[in-house]
Every structure is written in C-alpha cells, then in structure tokens.
C-alpha cells in the first residue's frame, strides 16, 4: 500500500494549522480557552511520545534498573534541566545508552 495519499492529507492538515491564524486575522477572534489550551499542547504531545520510548521494552512496561533506555532517558532529563542544551542532552543520552547496553550485554 502506498502511504503517499495519507501523507499528502497529513501535509495539508499541517499547512492548514500553520496558515490558520495568519489567514484569519482580523476576521476571527481567537477564543481565550483555545489560547490557554494551546499552551499545554507541546508538553502533552511530547511527553506522550517520550514516556513509552523510555519505559516500554519489547512490548512490556519495564521500570527496572535493567532497562537501559529508562536510565539513559532520566540522565538526559537531568542534563536538559541543567544545561538547556539540545546537543548536550542528545550526546549524554546516547553515550549513556551505549554504555548501559554494553554493560548489560557483558
């Protein structure tokens, strides 16, 4: 099955979102509730993506010290809070993951 039609629609939806207020300005007031709700969208969406990546291993929830992605992710979160640097967060997280994977394998 080709994914192109679905991706074209996804692209259209994205474009419409980006154009929304730019095109409507002056004709429509942004409802205050929507403005307040939009503020929480990035944190909610990104967390909903992050959590399963960290705690789910091979289809099951794994909160043990034997889960390298969970430990590496927690370390990266500390680095992110401290440094606010995307590069350092990714770098330290990947190094931690590789080290833990090597440890657990050996």
């Amino acid at each position, binding site marked *: 099955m*080709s*994914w192109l*039609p*679905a*991706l074209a*629609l*996804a*692209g259209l*939806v*994205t*474009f419409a*979102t*980006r*154009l*929304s*207020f*730019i*095109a409507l*300005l*002056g004709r429509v007031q942004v409802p205050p509730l929507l*403005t*307040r*709700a*939009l*503020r*929480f*969208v*990035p*944190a*909610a*969406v*990104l*967390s*909903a*993506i*992050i*959590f*399963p*990546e*960290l705690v*789910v291993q091979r289809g099951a*929830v794994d909160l043990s010290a034997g889960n390298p*992605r969970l430990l*590496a*992710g927690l370390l*990266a*979160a500390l680095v*992110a*809070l401290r440094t*606010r*640097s*995307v*590069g350092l*967060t*990714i770098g330290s*997280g*990947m190094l931690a*993951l*590789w080290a833990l*994977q090597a440890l657990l394998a050996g």
Partner: protein
Amino acid sequence: MSSAPPVATPRREFLDGCRDELPILLGVAPFGMIYGLLALRAGLDPFTSQAMSSVVFAGSAQFISAQLIRDGAPAAVLIMTVFVVNLRHALYSASMAAHLKHLGIRWKGLLAYLLTDEAYAVMAARCTRDAGLAEPSPHRHWYFFGAGVTLWGSWQLSTAAGIFLGAQVPDRWSLDFTLALTFIALVFPALKDRAAAAAAVAAGVLSVAALGLPYKLGLVLAAVAGVAVGLGVEARRS
C-alpha cells in the same frame, strides 16, 4: 534619532534571514538524517521518505509517522496524530499573524508553509528586535522567507543524506533513541509551572497505559487528556 537608517533591500533582508538561520542547522541536519534512516527502516521507499520531508515538513510529526507506519497503524490515525502533534504550530500562526497581515495571500501561504519550529524561532526573534521601531522594514517578509527556505533546504538535503546512508547504519547503534532525547531536551526546560508539569505527566502516563488500545490511538488520546489536565490544574490555582 537623527536620521532613519537606509531601508534594507529585499535581497539584503533575504540574505540576513538565511544567515540567522544557519546556527540552528547544526541541530537540524542530524535530525533530518536520522529521520531519513528511520523512514527507510519503517518500510517506506526512498521516494516516499523524501516526499514526506517536503509534504509534511515537520520533524517530530515525521518521526512519529515513521513509527506509526512501522507499527502498521491505519492512515486515519496517522493523519489525526500528525494533526495533534502539529497543533502547536497554530500558536506560531497566531503569533506571526499581526506581522504578516499586510501581505497578499501568496506570501501568507508561502510563509505559513515554511513556519516550522526552527524557522519560527528566528522569525519571532526578529519581530522582538523590531518591537522598538516605529515602522519595521517594508521588506521584512523577505527575511522570514530567507530563514524559512534555508531551513527547508537543509531539511531536504539531510533527509536525502539519511536515506542514502540508511543501509549502512547498524541497528545496535539505537539511533531511534535520539527522538526521545530530542523531545526530552525540548520538554523539560519548558515545564515552567505546575499546570504544564501536570499536563506532561498525565499525558505521559496515559500514553503508556493506553498502549494496548487498537489502531495506535493512545498518543492522540493521551495528548488530549494531558491538555485537559493542564487546563484543570490552571483553573483550580487561579
């Protein structure tokens, strides 16, 4: 003020926009390469993988799409998920609207297409710098265009590089983990108050709890519930 500075030409504005976008490319180029890698791994052919970078043109949504395609999610869920993941762009649209209102619909459409996280960051910084001016440069939209099109070009090229290198990177490098790490870098410093933190925790826990849901609907439901929790906590405290 003695005399007004000379008005910058469209060409000058365009080049300034390109230049100001350059430092951001350091973070974007590896991200684009990894997307190209993951799209191939998910089972997309090279053409579709590359097409997604110009049709959808949104890093995090493209990563999630690759995951959903790998997991065999239905097309309707993919479209809905992209919509929710990209809802934050409505914020950028609202923020840029006043600065673009004098432009024709073609310019508005072009700049809206280029309104990614990374281009918005540069455009919004310019608007903040201009806030003290009585009259911003009449060709400022060329600056926005320069910033946006620079990001666009680097995204296409880095995607192509990722697709090209795709077959040569072994699975054990776990490069897919960079997705979670990038989002960790974006989310944690942004949790400035209790309501935002509550939204993040609720959405995260629910998305794990909802993993068993059919059609990979968990992400969308968890995100919507997280926003509702954030609104609820905010309302109780004010």
